[in-house]
């Protein structure tokens, strides 16, 4: 990395206004400071020396504009991130699902497969997967395909294995859910086929279903503007059943959002909320 934040505000505006017309998702929904860093990272990775070069390419090639927008999204970091949250989920939330005939779960706006794989594994371990409907949605076709045919590299596997041990102790291994092929670990098809994969734009479309028992929306709203975040959370809130659970990242808050008063914390430290 040569520099950070070296594009000018003018260059930033040129790029975002071009994407507004050339791409399929408006960057207006993104948080500007983080977006600026994403753009710069994209330019470095793909060898664009100036915003003008990038703009020119996007104007000429609409599919590139979509590729660029995909690059602005941030993949999840690892499986079973913040292990204590998964412990709480297993201990305090899953027992409530015991008497439900169907458990509907939504992992919206997936970017990478970590969160989805984690929930599928923990449901399987708790004998809940068979009666669960797990919706995995993403606004991009490629994001859906990546999650469907999930692969994990060795480095991420090592980090995730440590998290897994922190959740489940020595009771089983994360590798049990993967098949090693060359340098990658391929996620169990038996588990991933239980998920319902849908292309879905969280910003513009109605929820893919209603009556969810649980929505995992951890660290996704970090990258959205305040307005976009409010809109998303309102949509997610509406799609939950009364008594349904809503989980956000450890570093996130519902403070300042209208729904704050309609959620009660189920675990304050792990940011698990319950709709009242």
């Amino acid at each position: 990395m040569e520099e950070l934040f070296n594009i000018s505000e003018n260059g930033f505006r040129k790029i975002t206004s071009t994407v507004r017309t050339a791409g399929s998702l408006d960057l207006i929904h993104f948080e500007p400071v983080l977006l600026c860093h994403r753009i710069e990272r994209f330019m470095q990775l793909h060898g664009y020396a100036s915003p003008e070069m990038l703009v020119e390419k996007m104007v000429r090639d609409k599919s590139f504009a979509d590729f660029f927008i995909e690059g602005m999204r941030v993949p999840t970091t690892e499986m079973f991130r913040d292990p204590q949250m998964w412990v709480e989920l297993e201990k305090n939330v899953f027992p409530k699902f015991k008497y439900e005939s169907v458990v509907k779960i939504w992992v919206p706006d997936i970017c990478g497969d970590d969160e989805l794989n984690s929930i599928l594994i923990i449901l399987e371990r708790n004998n809940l997967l068979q009666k669960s409907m797990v919706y995995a949605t993403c606004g991009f076709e490629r994001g859906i395909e990546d999650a469907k045919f999930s692969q994990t590299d060795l480095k991420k596997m090592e980090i995730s294995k440590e998290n897994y041990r922190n959740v489940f102790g020595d009771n089983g291994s994360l590798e049990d859910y993967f098949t090693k092929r060359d340098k990658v670990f391929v996620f169990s098809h038996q588990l991933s086929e239980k998920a319902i994969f849908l292309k879905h734009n969280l910003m513009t479309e109605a929820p893919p279903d209603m009556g969810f028992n649980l929505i995992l929306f951890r660290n996704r709203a970090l990258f959205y503007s305040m307005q976009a975040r409010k809109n998303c959370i309102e949509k997610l809130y509406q799609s939950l059943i009364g008594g349904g659970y809503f989980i956000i990242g450890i570093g996130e808050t519902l403070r300042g959002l209208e729904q704050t008063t309609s959620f009660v914390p189920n675990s304050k430290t792990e940011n698990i909320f319950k709709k009242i």
Partner: protein
Amino acid sequence: MLYVVIGGSAGSFPVVTGLLASLDKNFPFPMFLCLHRLKNVRTGFVEALRLKSVLPVSEPYDREPVLRGHVYLAPANYHMYVTKSETISLSTEEVVNHSRPSIDITFSSAARSFGSKCVGILLSGANKDGALGMKAIKEAGGTAIVQSPDECQVRTMTTAAIKAADVDYILTGAQIISYLQKLKE
């Protein structure tokens, strides 16, 4: 108004605690600490800093407004950005210099947001994180201070910053404390 950003890794903890212990409760500027830490250890760090500090110390939540005289510690496994609108943004983006939180990210965002009002201080550490952030602070007209490598428990980080940026001061821990105490004057 000034904005103080401090970065450190291995060997920086005693300097940070010494610094927090030496400031009085009327210190008028916000301070942002980006210290490398274990990603799954979420408790203990901020509590240890609070024991030493008369200023309030907290791990911010995303979009938290910045307050004067408050110390913000980058949470484990998140990058911490500071913004022009005086809020803090957190991010789970890729690691930078094998680090999340990354000092380069915090420093560079502070440089971009606050320019000449930014004071960056880089302490002991074992990788090169912070060097580009220091350069960004200098280029934005801010003040770049590096702990003397001779005094650092691990000198890699400070040496890299001195090489990358034309820093304003190379100071001992005691001199950094003194510099900060005089800032409000």
